[in-house]
Each structure stands twice: as structure tokens, then as C-alpha cells.
């Protein structure tokens, strides 16, 4: 079904980003309203899509498309939204809306460029998820790199700039490999449309198939941050302001995961990964990466670094469970993508709030934070409990399905890694919680000293907004924990699509 609403999901953020500098020339106060209006429009389009096509979703034939320039699928660029993209796209609209609200209270300087880049990231994410064209996907991946790198350096100190340089080098090399892969696909098949590439990929000769797969794998593993290429991730995700860490770690990694899924389940069929025995190797690579992430998180004394390493652990786990290529695996993986997005975003946002009351990110400065901000710290604890996998929260259910998926096909190493990861998570979160409730006695001079030592960033503009957003995320993990069956319908539809990619090809090419 042709629908313009999926185009608007990409265009609206771009228009907002282009308008902000123009508006700044006249009046800087209007900017905040424009930003909020942009966020509201974006999220309302998402809600509109869900509501008006809900009957289609129920009937199992949810499929939206748009032809850019009016050129039909094989010859022009087309946008596609199926059930998997629906999950990711609406999650991103939702999460980024709240991060925007949080930023309004949180970011104090250089707001104009911050929001420009933020909305460009939003548009690029939606574009990377919705596009049905390989080269267009490459353009959006590069756009993601170019927009997120200056935001990594946003704090403008030595640490952040180093992180940005490292991020940029890895990002550009990953993008270059992706470019080579796209070009190889074009030279062999003669098309750039994902459905047509999927149709003809089996006809390429074996050696070339292997080459294409390995080129794409190098590019995407760099972008996702799996073990041999993960060096950029913890630095980049911990150097920026917390709202951006939430964006990068909570949301952006999922976009790359989505691209991985889209590429290796639909464009390049999964049977080729099995044929060349790459799949089982990748499962172990992802699990080792997960283990590494959790182990490094144990020894990190900087809270944001710890959270970033924990992200490596979780992303490796999700990738491994997807690569099992079973129905339970997809269910657990997709559910954990949702839950990790909620939990990690919430954790980074609440950490951002708590860190305003400390001198640095180091664990020793974390002492006594729990007494100063009681409500937020309780929220922080609930989020960590969900991260560990305590029953009433969503984290438990998604981890449960992941372990089930591993056990179902007798993959004991995977199950052990998941359990070990949760156990180590207990330790590394408990260290910070215990430190937060430590009793400290401050003399008057100490207090004065601490206030003067605070970083410049620690000025809250609207504290109420910040805390409200954090409470919303805490509420979300509790609510979705009790009612995670709400996601049942889109998840099942998405799983059907992943198991049967031929369906996608038929819908686009009309065969």
C-alpha cells in the first residue's frame, strides 16, 4: 500500500534541522518550540501509522511503501515499512521524543547545533530503517556517522575529541567497506533494489558470494562493535553528554542491528551464512564479545564506561540469539532489543541526572548520591534490576526467552554466557548502588569545594522535565514488564517475515 506517511517520518526531521539555523538568525527563543513541535509531529505520525493500519497488522498483511520520484521499485528508490521496520521505527520515534524533552532541560550550551545534529540523526535513523535501496542505505549510514561524531566531541575536551577521532576513523572505514559491498552487488547483479538483489543473490558464483558476505560483515561488525572491532565503542559512548550516550548506546546500536538483520536475512539469505559455515562462527564471536563486554564492565570504575561495556555485552547477546535462526531466537532477540532500548536509554538518562551531583564519573565520587536524590536513585536501582533480569521487569522476560532459545537447540555455551553476564551485572551494578548509599559526612569547606569543582555542564535548566522523563522510562519498564504480551502481534508478524523473506520480495516486486 502506498502511503506518504513513511516519507514524512524521514522528511520532517530533516526540515526541522534545516529550519533551526534560519530561525536562529531571527529569534533564538523560538527554537525550543520548533524542536518540541518537530518531536510531536514525528511521534504522532508513528502513532497514526500504528492506529490506522492496525487492522492490516492483525490480518498479517501490514506493508507500506512509497516510490520516490514516482519510479517503481527496481529502477527508483523505494521506501518500505513492514512489521520489523514498524517495531524499530516507532521505537525510535518514541525514544528520541523523550530524549529531546530531556535535552531541553539538560543541554545548556550550543543548543542550536545540538538540535540540528540531533534531528539529522533522527532523520537518518528513520531513513536507514525505511529505505529499500542498498545505496540509499549507505548514504544514510554515512549520515549517521557524520552526525554522531561531532556530538561525541560535544563536551569539547581532550577526552571527548580523542573519542570522536577514534569513532570517526572506525566509522569511515566501516562505511567504506559497506560501499565496496554495495558496488560489488551492483557489478554482479545489476540492481540496487534490495528485493531484486535478494531474488538474484543465489545466482552469483560461490567465491564472489563469500567475498561479498565477508566485506559486508567487516563493515557491519565495525559499526555494531563486536569483539575484534569494538575498540571505539566504550570511549565514544562515555565521552559525550548523557543524553547523547543514551542516544548512541540505547538507540543507534539497534539501528545497526536492524541493518544487520535486514541485510543478512532478507538481502543476502541466511542460508548462505549457513552454507559457508559463517553462522556458527559468528555466534561464538558474538558470545565471546558479550563475555568480554561484561568482564570489562566489571573492572570499569567510570560509570558511563561501565554502561557502555554492558552495551557491548547485551548487543553481542542479541546478535548471537538472532544468528541461531530459530523462531524462539527471533522472539527473544526482538524483545530484548525493545527492552534493552528502554533500559539503557533510561539508565543513561538517570545517570546523567545523578552525575550532575558528582565531581566526575568515577565510582569514588558516587558516594552519597543516593541520599541526595532519593527518587531518581530508586529509579536507577529499578532500571539496573531490570538490566540484571529481575522478574517483574521487562528485562527478565526478554532474557528468559533468550535463554530458552539457546536451550531449545542445546546451545549450552550461549545459555551459560547469558547467565554469567547477568551474574556479573549483579556485581557491577551493585558496586555503584552500594557506593551511592554510602554515608558521607561533608564539612562546610568540603561542600563549598565540591560546588566549585562541578563541571560547567552541571547547570540544570528545567529540572522537572529531566526527572519526569526518567520517571517515564522507569514506568515504561515496569508497565511493559507486566504486559510484554502487547508486543506479541508485531513481533510475531516480524518473525514471520524473517523466516520467509520471499514474502518481502513478492510484495515489492509484485511477483
Amino acid at each position, binding site marked *: 500500500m502506498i502511503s506518504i506517511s513513511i516519507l514524512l517520518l524521514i522528511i520532517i526531521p530533516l526540515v526541522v534541522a534545516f529550519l533551526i539555523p534560519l530561525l536562529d538568525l531571527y529569534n533564538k527563543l523560538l527554537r525550543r518550540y520548533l524542536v518540541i513541535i518537530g518531536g510531536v509531529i514525528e511521534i504522532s505520525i508513528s502513532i497514526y501509522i500504528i492506529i490506522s493500519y492496525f487492522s492490516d497488522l492483525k490480518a498479517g498483511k501490514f506493508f507500506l511503501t512509497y516510490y520516490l520520484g514516482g519510479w517503481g521499485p527496481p529502477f527508483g528508490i523505494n521506501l518500505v515499512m513492514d512489521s520489523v521496520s514498524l517495531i524499530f521505527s516507532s521505537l525510535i520515534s518514541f525514544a528520541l521524543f523523550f530524549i529531546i524533552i530531556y535535552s531541553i532541560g539538560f543541554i545548556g550550551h550550543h543548543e542550536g547545533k545540538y538540535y540540528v545534529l540531533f534531528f539529522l540523526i533522527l532523520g537518518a535513523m528513520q531513513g536507514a530503517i525505511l529505505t529499500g535501496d542498498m*545505496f540509499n542505505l549507505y*548514504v544514510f549510514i*554515512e549520515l549517521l*556517522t*557524520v552526525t554522531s*561524531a*561531532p556530538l561525541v*566531541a560535544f563536551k*569539547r*575536551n*581532550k*577526552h571527548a*575529541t*580523542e*573519542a*570522536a*577521532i*577514534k569513532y*570517526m*576513523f572506525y566509522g*569511515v*572505514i566501516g*562505511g*567504506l567497506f559497506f*560501499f*565496496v559491498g*554495495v*558496488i560489488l552487488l*551492483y*557489478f554482479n547483479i545489476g540492481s*540496487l533494489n534490495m528485493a531484486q538483489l535478494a531474488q538474484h543473490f543465489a545466482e552469483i558464483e560461490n567465491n564472489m558470494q563469500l567475498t561479498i558476505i565477508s566485506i559486508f560483515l567487516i563493515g557491519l561488525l565495525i559499526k555494531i562493535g563486536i569483539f575484534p572491532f569494538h*575498540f571505539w565503542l566504550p*570511549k565514544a559512548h562515555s565521552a559525550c553528554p548523557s543524553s547523547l550516550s543514551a542516544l548512541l548506546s540505547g538507540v543507534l546500536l539497534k539501528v545497526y542491528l536492524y541493518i544487520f538483520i535486514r541485510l543478512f536475512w532478507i538481502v543476502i539469505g541466511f542460508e548462505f551464512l549457513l552454507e559457508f559455515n559463517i553462522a556458527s562462527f559468528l555466534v561464538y564471536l558474538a558470545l565471546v564479545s558479550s563475555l568480554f563486554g561484561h568482564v570489562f564492565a566489571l573492572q570499569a570504575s567510570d560509570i558511563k564506561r561501565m554502561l557502555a561495556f554492558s552495551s557491548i555485552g547485551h548487543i553481542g547477546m542479541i546478535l548471537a540469539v538472532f544468528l541461531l535462526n530459530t523462531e524462539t531466537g527471533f522472539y527473544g532477540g526482538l524483545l530484548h532489543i525493545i527492552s534493552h532500548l528502554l533500559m539503557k536509554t533510561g539508565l543513561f538518562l538517570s545517570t546523567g541526572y545523578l552525575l550532575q551531583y558528582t565531581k566526575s564519573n568515577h565510582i569514588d565520587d558516587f558516594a552519597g548520591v543516593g541520599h541526595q536524590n532519593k527518587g531518581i536513585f530508586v529509579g536507577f536501582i529499578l532500571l539496573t534490576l531490570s538490566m540484571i533480569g529481575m522478574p517483574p521487569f521487562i528485562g527478565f522476560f526478554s532474557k528468559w526467552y533468550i535463554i530458552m532459545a539457546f536451550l531449545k537447540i542445546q546451545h549450552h555455551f550461549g545459555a551459560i554466557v547469558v547467565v554469567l553476564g547477568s551474574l556479573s551485572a549483579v556485581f557491577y551494578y551493585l558496586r555503584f548502588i552500594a557506593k551511592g548509599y554510602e554515608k558521607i559526612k561533608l564539612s562546610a569547606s568540603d561542600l563549598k569545594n565540591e560546588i566549585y569543582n562541578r563541571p560547567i555542564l552541571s547547570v540544570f535548566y528545567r529540572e522537572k522535565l529531566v526527572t519526569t522523563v526518567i520517571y517515564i522510562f522507569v514506568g515504561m519498564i515496569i508497565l511493559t514488564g507486566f504486559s510484554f504480551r502487547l508486543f506479541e502481534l508485531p513481533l510475531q508478524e516480524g518473525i514471520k517475515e524473517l523466516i520467509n523473506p520471499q514474502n518481502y520480495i513478492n510484495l515489492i516486486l509484485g511477483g
Partner: protein
Amino acid sequence: MLHHLVFTVLFLLGLYTVIYKNNLIKMVIGLNIMEIAVFFWVIAVSDTGKSVPIYHLNKFAASFNDPVPQALTLTGIIIGASTTALLLTFIIELNKFADTIDSNKLEGLNE
């Protein structure tokens, strides 16, 4: 075959520069050389000995080189230029804080 050889040499030269050189600006140059290698390869391979894909007004010859790789490469070149500019900006900024562009002396780039 010759084009593939030139491509491989240039690509690995660029990768070598990125990995083993310590001067950050040299590393960016290496990245540029990698990009150049890829773009050169794309154009060289897509050349089938036919003419430029532009119509002449009076003679409508229709045996053109494949225009698609050229369009894709054009996009790639422009994206590459903007990433280069951004990287150099970061290096200027880093030099301001750390007073060096030697990646060996920046422990943050070496862990």
C-alpha cells in the same frame, strides 16, 4: 587485472598508513588514499570502452559506459570530502587541548 592490482596496492597502502603511522594527519591521508583506491577501482572496472554517458545533440549514439557507478562514485567522493573536513576539524581541536598530533603520545587513541 591491472586495475585490481593498482586498487589492491593503493587500498593496502592506505590501510597501512591508517594503522602504522602515528601522525594523525598522515592517518587521514591514508583514509583518503583508501577512498581514492575504491573510487578508482569502481570507475576503472565500469569502463567498457564506450563513450561518456552524455548525449550529443546531433548524433544520438546510444552505446554508453554504465552511468550508475559514476553517479554512485560521485556521491562517495562528496561524502568522503565532508568526512575528511570533519576529521581535520577534530584534529585541530585535539591539538589545541593536547598540544600534539602524534597518536603515540595520546594514550586515549592507543588503548
